[in-house]
């Protein structure tokens, strides 16, 4: 057989991930064309207006919270942890997919991630900002929130380093900082591309400033690639640690339903599951609106759905295992906590969770559903609704009926709980829309690595 008839694996790979006749030039043009466009699309202004309105709801309700205190929330005895922690865990979890895509898939040399990693990392950044809001504001007197930090002070007061709550603070803060550094490092070569293509002086100056004078020399790439690899290497255990530490907030307590060793892996799987849901939701919208279906292909969506299937099954297994262990433990409080989840007054929360997290991903076994964009879009939103309910189940249902029936009570969120939660969407989408408008939404440099031409040994001349 002639050599031309045999396609290399790299070529097959490129045909799936970058369909059509794409080359280095078209990739640059297509991706940087979005931030370079002169006219901002009308839908962008509409979405931005909506995001800003939600952001003002956020700022307003936050102001009232600071003025009045956490009494405006629905928390009370016995449910002392309400929407604030639910939303915190939910947003941090969403962030996890970004790091999984950018770090873990990089280490596994999954080059299909090159198209979606920038997108997912940006999602991580803003999701973690939204998450960090909640531990910041739930303390009540937020002007002393810096007491989280181990700072020398005249009261000789130090944080309790043996408490999982302070571990959590360190974990999420490190996670945010490392995600930001990772995101920015990946952005440097692309900022240089935008600098070199900039038409106006101001744009050239701004992009040029942030590109740090990148020249694309191999003497620079050499150190850059190592730094990027190490960042991926340290982000991998980091991302697994973050949600494990979040889960220890619950698991180190003595509350039935929380005091379990399955929590860390179960939380991590759930986090990745919800994060991929969010990436799919955002990708489906962006690829359609910016006509980048040849960069974010159906193949990418298919692969993300496969990861949702895997993590969804892990989550489903964890739900089953929790019930099994509750029965096996022989502890009546533990057993009651789980029967109460499924059949108690909040049964609807539990079954909403089961439907969205266990039933819905089963459709992803079939290629037909994985590649059906509208179906994928709707189910990806259901995934995140389900994951919100999971945290609701864990926090509210567990707390509202504890050891003594005399202490039992129902939990009722107030309008301010809802306002602050909706407000974080304003914060998230304001940031995300600004990113879409001004920065390349896929990594220009890394997408090119998918093309076989990027490898000097392709074509067998060596």
């Amino acid at each position, binding site marked *: 057989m002639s050599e031309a008839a045999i396609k290399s694996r790299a070529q097959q790979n490129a045909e799936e991930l970058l369909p059509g006749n794409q080359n280095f030039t078209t990739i640059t043009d297509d991706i940087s064309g979005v931030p370079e466009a002169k006219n901002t699309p009308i839908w962008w202004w509409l979405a931005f207006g909506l995001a800003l309105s939600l952001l003002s709801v956020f700022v307003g309700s936050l102001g009232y919270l600071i003025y009045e205190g956490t009494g405006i929330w629905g928390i009370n005895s016995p449910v002392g942890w309400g929407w604030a922690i639910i939303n915190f865990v939910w947003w941090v979890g969403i962030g996890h997919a970004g790091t999984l895509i950018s770090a873990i898939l990089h280490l596994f040399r999954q080059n299909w991630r090159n198209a979606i990693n920038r997108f997912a990392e940006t999602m991580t950044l803003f999701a973690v900002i939204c998450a960090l809001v909640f531990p910041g504001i739930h303390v009540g007197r937020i002007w002393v929130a810096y007491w989280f930090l181990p700072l020398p002070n005249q009261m000789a007061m130090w944080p309790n380093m043996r408490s999982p709550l302070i571990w959590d603070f360190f974990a999420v803060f490190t996670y945010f900082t490392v995600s930001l550094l990772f995101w920015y*490092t990946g952005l440097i070569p692309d900022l240089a591309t935008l600098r070199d293509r900039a038409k106006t002086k101001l744009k050239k100056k701004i992009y040029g400033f942030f590109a740090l004078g990148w020249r694309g020399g191999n003497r620079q790439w050499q150190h850059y690639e190592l730094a990027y690899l*190490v960042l991926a290497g340290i982000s991998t255990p980091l991302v697994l640690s973050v949600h494990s530490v979040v889960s220890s907030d619950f698991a180190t307590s003595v509350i039935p339903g929380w005091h379990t060793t399955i929590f860390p892996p179960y939380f991590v799987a759930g986090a990745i599951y919800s994060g991929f849901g969010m990436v799919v939701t955002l990708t489906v919208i962006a690829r359609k609106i910016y006509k980048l279906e040849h960069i974010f292909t159906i193949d990418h969506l298919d692969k993300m759905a496969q990861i949702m299937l895997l993590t969804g099954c892990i989550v489903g297994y964890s739900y089953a295992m929790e019930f099994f262990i509750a029965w096996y433990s022989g502890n009546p409080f533990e057993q009651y906590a789980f029967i109460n989840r499924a059949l108690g007054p909040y049964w609807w929360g539990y079954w909403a969770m089961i439907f969205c997290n266990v039933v819905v991903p089963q459709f992803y076994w079939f290629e037909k559903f994985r590649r059906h964009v509208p179906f994928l879009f709707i189910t990806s939103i259901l995934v995140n609704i389900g994951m919100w309910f999971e945290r609701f189940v864990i926090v509210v249902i567990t707390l509202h009926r504890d050891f003594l029936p005399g202490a039992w009570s129902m939990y009722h969120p107030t309008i301010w709980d809802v306002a602050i939660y909706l407000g974080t969407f304003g914060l998230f989408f304001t940031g995300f829309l600004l990113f879409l408008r001004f920065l390349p939404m896929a990594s220009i440099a890394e997408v090119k690595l998918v093309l076989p031409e990027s490898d000097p040994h392709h074509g067998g001349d060596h």
Partner: protein
Amino acid sequence: MKTYGIIARFDTTSDLLHAAEKIRDAGFKDFDCHSPFPVHGLDDAMGLKRTTLGYLIGAMGMTGALFGFGLQTWIHLIEYPMNISGKPFFAYPAYAIITFELMVLFSAFGAVFGMMYYNRIPRLHHPVFYSEKFSAVTSDAFYVSIESSDSKYDDNQTKDFLKKIGGKDIELLQDENE
């Protein structure tokens, strides 16, 4: 004004790789290969040694871990030993998380700022930016630059050499800063 050096364009990654090998074999030291993305195999083709950045990151990670463990031990054992729910003062298993987080944090700073130090960036002005055509290097062009500081460098000879190994759009660049 001083001459900075010469740049020459190549069409493909494999052309760039072969050019790098020839320049290396001709004995040049102060040269660089510019590309829109990292090109596999260029380090060897250019005769570059493995970067020592990894050691710096390792040292930073160790520092972070020691700092994290030391901080927690100092707070609970020396500065203000306080009995909280009967937990031991030197509860080293409980210190593992923050020790780990600070190790990661310090390593990340080491990786990013170490990379910037090794690459000598930020450096917003550089003679290669004076070339109009060179700006395509961040999109689809591959360039070789040979600096005049190299002992083998000579305006005309180096130009001919680059032409011989297949370089196009050869340009002589001035260093306007000097």
